[in-house]
């Protein structure tokens, strides 16, 4: 099976995480699969910048015209496309940050800059693996499931689930706006466990209920506007969709 790892406009943190966090698994990955391209590690095999692959993992958001062109080529040359990380699956910080900014004059030679979009806005995505950065364990799990013809999954629980399992006190109780009830778990409630509110960097949970969450905030006398602002930070396009459904 041939794999390829691409990077669009991003911090390249997801691919770096895979390299650092896969540990010894990286080596077996390298031995088992034909990895035709791995940004940062291996140049494209066979001369073509976008080689044919069975599974393509794409990190980063679509920001430039070059991104768009490359992504279309990736889709054409890959049987299965996986969005790797929150940038690729929902646009992440760039999505909100690039809106309401004058982008017209931002042209550098032949590179044009547009408002950032997740890759699903441009091509059909077969599976989204969110996380900022992506989790190496979830990546391995998804890869194993894919090669075994099993549908890959992401956690169906929210950050609260893991936070309470750890026996933490709820930040909402302490009067702080935390996106835990809306956010997809799987991070082990890393932020709330050290007293920092959740910003939902892994995107919304599968059954996120914004309406109920905002009503809960209202009941507690917490700032709803702040919650919506926080939601926009990482959740990008998905925040927009969530808000549309909520109203």
């Amino acid at each position, binding site marked *: *099976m041939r794999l390829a790892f691409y990077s669009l406009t991003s911090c390249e943190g997801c691919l770096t995480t895979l390299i650092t966090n896969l540990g010894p698994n990286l080596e077996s*990955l390298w031995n088992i699969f034909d990895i035709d391209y791995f940004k940062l590690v291996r140049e494209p095999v066979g001369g073509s910048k976008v080689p044919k692959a069975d599974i393509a993992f794409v990190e980063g958001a679509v920001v430039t015209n070059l991104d768009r062109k490359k992504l279309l080529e990736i889709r054409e040359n890959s049987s299965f496309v996986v969005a790797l990380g929150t940038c690729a699956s929902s646009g992440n910080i760039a999505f909100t940050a690039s809106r309401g900014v004058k982008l017209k004059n931002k042209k550098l030679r032949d590179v044009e800059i547009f408002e950032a979009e997740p890759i699903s806005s441009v091509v059909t995505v077969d599976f989204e693996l969110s996380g900022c950065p992506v989790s190496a364990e979830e990546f391995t799990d998804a890869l194993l499931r894919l090669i075994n013809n099993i549908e890959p999954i992401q956690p169906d629980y929210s950050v609260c*689930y893991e936070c309470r399992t750890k*026996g*933490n*006190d709820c930040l909402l109780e302490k009067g702080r706006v935390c996106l835990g009830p809306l956010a997809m778990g799987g991070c082990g409630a890393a932020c709330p466990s050290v007293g920092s509110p959740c910003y939902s960097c892994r995107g919304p949970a*599968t059954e996120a*209920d914004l309406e*109920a969450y905002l*009503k809960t905030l209202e009941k507690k006398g917490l700032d709803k506007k702040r919650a919506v602002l926080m939601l926009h930070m990482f959740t990008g396009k998905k925040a927009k969709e969530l808000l549309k459904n909520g109203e």
Partner: protein
Amino acid sequence: MPKLTTQDILKLIDGLRAEGFEVISPLRINGVVKLAKLPPGEAPLLDYIRINNSPKDFLLPCRESLYKYRSTATLTSYGLKIRFPTAEGPCPVTIMPECTLPKSKIAFFGIHPCMVNSIRYLDKVMLSDPADPYYKGRRDGMFIAVMECEEGDDYCLCGMLDSYKVPAGYADLMMRKRDGGFLVRAASEGGKGVLALINKTQEKDGVPELVPKMKEKYTFDSTDEAEIDRRDAKEYVELCTLCAACTVTCPTCYCGDIEDEFSLMDPANVERTRLRMSCQRKCYSMIAGGTTFLKTKDARFKWRLKHKFPFSERAYQLKGCIGCGNCIAMCPARIDFRKFLGRREA
């Protein structure tokens, strides 16, 4: 009935440690009150109302390895290969699971009677035939020192479920606060032995029952399955975000999941792991093909209550709710099942 000072309590705990017990008691860690392993020399927190976790976390951990096995699997880039073609006769390859059962001596020191009742409920579920060997390994030889409760907070409801009473055989020591010290009495031979360690002897029994004061009183009309189904839960679940804090912090929620875990490096080395599950999660009631039986928030809320009341009463002749109120206190929206099932008394 001997009266003990904090110093005596520390000696008592040292005595338990000397007998090989792992002492678990309420502690304040970074401002959070929860049950944890008591570090040597530190005094347990005995003046508290609510803890964020429960004995369940020590008896049925969130993640535990059931067994390991070496499968014949090899990883190829086209999937896991578990096939072993044999030239002649039966295949020599077999799956031989290996497991080591936990064997620990746990001493819960200073838990409230409601938590003791939760251990009794878990016993009923886990030790009924066939007994769960992992639970049994942790449960056997357990020592329980109960801290009797004087007053509940806004969410406590042990007063109406009678779960402030410690069931027979579920306590070794009974403690209650008295004038800056603790009145301690042994409730079992093990308890007497531990008291003897610090040269305190059991005097005559006969202490009045301590009924904790409830801040709010409710009466439940009926907890029948039909009655729960009939009631309208819409206004209660309106604020529910399905975060599952209610089931995670419930001392008697025991639902579980079992999964295979292995690494890319060595796919033949598989670990079968038991994880926690919650009926508030989507995959709880999902069967092959993606059908989910509990689709709505409404159905999941009712399901939790049905499992606590009518289902448990039918299967184990015991309520699954032990009145700790954690599901209300830990809920971000403070969804109160007491109001759903009953009426508040003046």
